Structures are given as C-alpha cells and as structure tokens.
C-alpha cells in the first residue's frame, strides 16, 4: 500500500492541464488578438484551479506514506 495511486491521478490531472496549455500555445502563431489573450487568461485560470488539487494531493500522499511506513514495521 502506498501513495502511487493518488500520485498517478494527480499526474493525470497535470498532464491534462499541460495538454490544454500546449494546444492553446500551438494556436498562438495563428491567432494574435485580444480575444486570444482572454482565452489564454481563461486557460491560465484552469491551471490555477489545479494548484489546490496538487497541494491536497501531495498532503494526502504524505499521510498515506506515513501510514505505510508504520504498517511496514516488523514487531
């Protein structure tokens, strides 16, 4: 038992957000006006939402790892 499951989920979230950011960045050479700036700002907001998730995910992984360490102690 370890925190790998949660880490994998968090990595999935991060990968999805990055894929979106990369997709939007790819269009930047073909789209260059204030509307694109607004879109970039919206995508940036989404990336911001993910920070809370990552922080909570890390905290969760730490407590799971602490539990696992105790469980693995041989008596």
């Amino acid at each position, binding site marked *: 038992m370890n925190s790998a499951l949660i880490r994998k*989920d968090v990595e999935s979230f991060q990968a999805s957000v990055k*894929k*979106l950011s990369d997709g939007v960045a790819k269009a930047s050479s073909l789209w260059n006006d204030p509307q694109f700036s607004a879109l970039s700002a919206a995508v940036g907001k989404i990336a911001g939402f993910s920070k809370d998730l990552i922080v909570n995910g890390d905290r969760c992984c730490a407590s799971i790892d602490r539990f696992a360490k105790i469980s693995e102690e041989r008596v």
Partner: protein
Amino acid sequence: MVSVSHEALNIVKSALNDFKTDISALPQQSDSSAQKIKEECSASIGQTAGELSVSENRIVELKTQEQFLEDKIRNGEQTINRLKESQASLQERLNRVDRQISDLHSQISSLDVQFRSEENEEFKKMIAGQISSAKENLNCLNDQQYEMKKQSDEITVKKNATEKEVSSAKTDKLKVEEKLSKEEIRRDKLQRKLDRQKNEYKHVESDLEAYLSAVKKFESSSKNAAQQSSSALNECISSIDSYLAVNL
C-alpha cells in the same frame, strides 16, 4: 483588430474538448483510488489487531503455564519437607531400636558368661530361659530395624525423585518466564503500532476527503471555464463560416 484563422480556432476547440473529456472521468477515478486506499489501510489495521490478539492469547497461555509450574514447585517442596520430617522421625526410632539391640547383645553376652560359670542346674535352666527370651526380643528388634531401614530407603528414593521434579520444574519456569517477558514486550510494541496506525489513518481519511473535494472543485470549475471558452469559440467559428459563405 481581429487576427485569427479558422485553423487556429479549431486547434483550440479541439484542445478544449479533449481537456473536457480527460477530466470528466477523473473524479470517479479518484474516488476509486481513495476507496482502494481506505480498504488497504483498514486491512492493515485489521492485521495488526489480529497479531495483537494472538500475542495476548499467548500471554494468557504462558501465564497459565507459569502458574502450573509454581504450584508444582510449591507442592513438591512441601512434599520434600514432609518426607524429611518423616525420615527424621523414623531415624530417631531407628536409633532407639539400635540402642535396644546393642543393650540386648550386651545382656545376652553377660547371661552367657553366667550360664557357663553356673554349676547349679536349676539356675542354669533359669539363665538359659532368660537367654532364650532375650534372643527372641533381639529377633523382633532386628525385624523392626530391617523394616525401618527399608522405609527410610523408600523415603530417600521418593525424596530424590521429588527433588528432581522440582528442579526440572524450576528450569521450565525460568524458560516460561523468559518467553512471557519477550511476549509482553512484543504485545506492547504491537499495541503502540496499532494506536499509531489508527491515529495516522484519521489523517489519511481527512486528507483523502480534502483531496477528493479539491478534485471535484477542479473538475467543476475547469469544466465550466472550458465550456464557456468552447461555446465562445463555436460562435466565432460560426461567424467566420457565415462570413466565408457570403458571395461578394
């Protein structure tokens, strides 16, 4: 000033749709991961509790063994003391019989001398009678002496056997006490491990709840933001399509 191509809009629209698809399954996936972790933690706590229970049962068993051996030692020592007292008493009686035998030997020797030196037949007969009587008493005392010695030997055998049993029980008791001490230490360590696991599990549970809450919030907020952008893009694409459809 507008500077955008159809292609750019579609690239972004595709990225947004992919994103919405990617994150839509994530809350369920996270719930499933969290549930699995909770189950594994509960199983681990259950295992520790099981080991603790086995240890406690072992301690009860060892204490029972210890008590049994203590009783055996005490009873054995009491038996040895009783046997020693019996033997001492028997020895006193044996000593008295030995003295009586010795006295009778002296008496018979003395009567014998008298008999040899006596010339009077009447007196000789009387002395002979006394000698005969003394010899009869001597035989009785010899029989008693033999029986008492036999009893004393039997007591010695029994005493030695009991001492051996007591010594063996004492050795066994030391071993049991050592095992008991080790098992009590192990039991205490298991108890502490269980307490720490339960305590940490509370943190795991609350951290998982906070994480799942963050996932749901992320999914909901991101989906809304993506949807709004997607809808806006669809309008842009429709406008461009309409513009391109105009026959100038």
